């Protein structure tokens, strides 16, 4: 193909492409898209972020483990040696909880407390689900 023919080809394709119509997507394209976008936006806004950053948690964990290892190495594992050897905690507990020694309660009260505790834990996932749904809808 010589230069002249190349130019003719170019002019011909220019003409075709100028006449080539632009296609349009469906009428509710923007509406559907905006629904997706709003869902994406909410996900971003309510993305879970831990209150304590990971690095701080790792630092605390490493600190506690090394402190424990240091104390074990320093004082050993025996309960009457080292730190706790001279500390007497029994009188403290006696003062605080001594009155419970003679306390008795009826079976009904025990069942009621147990049932209350059980229902409390049943509520937790339900309330969590409800809150999540409300936040997502806002």
């Amino acid at each position, binding site marked *: *193909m010589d230069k002249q023919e190349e130019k*003719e080809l170019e002019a011909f394709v220019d*003409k075709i492409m100028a*006449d080539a119509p632009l296609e349009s*997507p469906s009428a509710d*394209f923007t509406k*559907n898209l905006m629904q997706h976008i*709003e869902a*994406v*936006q909410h996900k971003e806004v309510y993305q879970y972020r831990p209150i304590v950053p990971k690095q701080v948690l790792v630092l605390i964990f490493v600190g506690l483990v090394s402190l424990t290892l240091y104390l074990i190495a320093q004082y050993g594992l025996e309960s009457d040696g080292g730190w706790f050897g001279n500390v007497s905690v029994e009188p403290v507990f006696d003062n605080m909880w001594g009155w419970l020694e003679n306390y008795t309660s009826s079976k009904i009260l025990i069942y009621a407390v147990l049932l209350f505790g059980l229902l409390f834990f049943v509520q937790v996932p339900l309330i969590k689900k409800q809150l999540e749904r409300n936040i997502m809808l806002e």
Partner: protein
Amino acid sequence: MLTTNEKELINKIRNGNTVAFSDLVDGHKDLVYTLCIRMLGNREDAEEVSQDVFIKVFTALRNFKGDSKLSTWIYRIAYNACLDRLKRTKKERMRVEVDHLKGSAFSVMDNALDRMVQEERSVLINSCLAALPAEDASILTLFYFEEKNLLEMEKVLDLSANTIKVRLFRARKKLAAIMERKFDKETVGNNG
């Protein structure tokens, strides 16, 4: 690179203004959809990919530095999304033989096109573009969307201007060959 209006629009979208984003979508959806349909060859895929393109535009807009035109950046996302879709579906259109193309045919086809009514001409051109392989269809479409600016095309396609020129020439030849074959068929059909 960016116009004042574009900068304003981008700032609004970055501040969470979804109405501004829907304006951006309305301004670019036809161009993106046309590029997708010419590369993918069917409306359903083109609509789905166009939607993915705009979701990507929305999430990536905060990282857009403004070193190209906004439309160029959107075309680049659309072009890459179409390439990904083609890779996944592994669809390939028929090869187009260009050896038989005669230079003298252009003026004949040109006259024939002139005699057609607008609607008929649009249908014919669309069917020819649909028969082009995705790479050629995309390069031709982008060349005219970018108003023949090879520098902007380099940014969309990530290719050198020389490579783009070579590919453009090949795409033009293929398009003309497809059109010639269509005209031949129609002439045979009309005469027979």
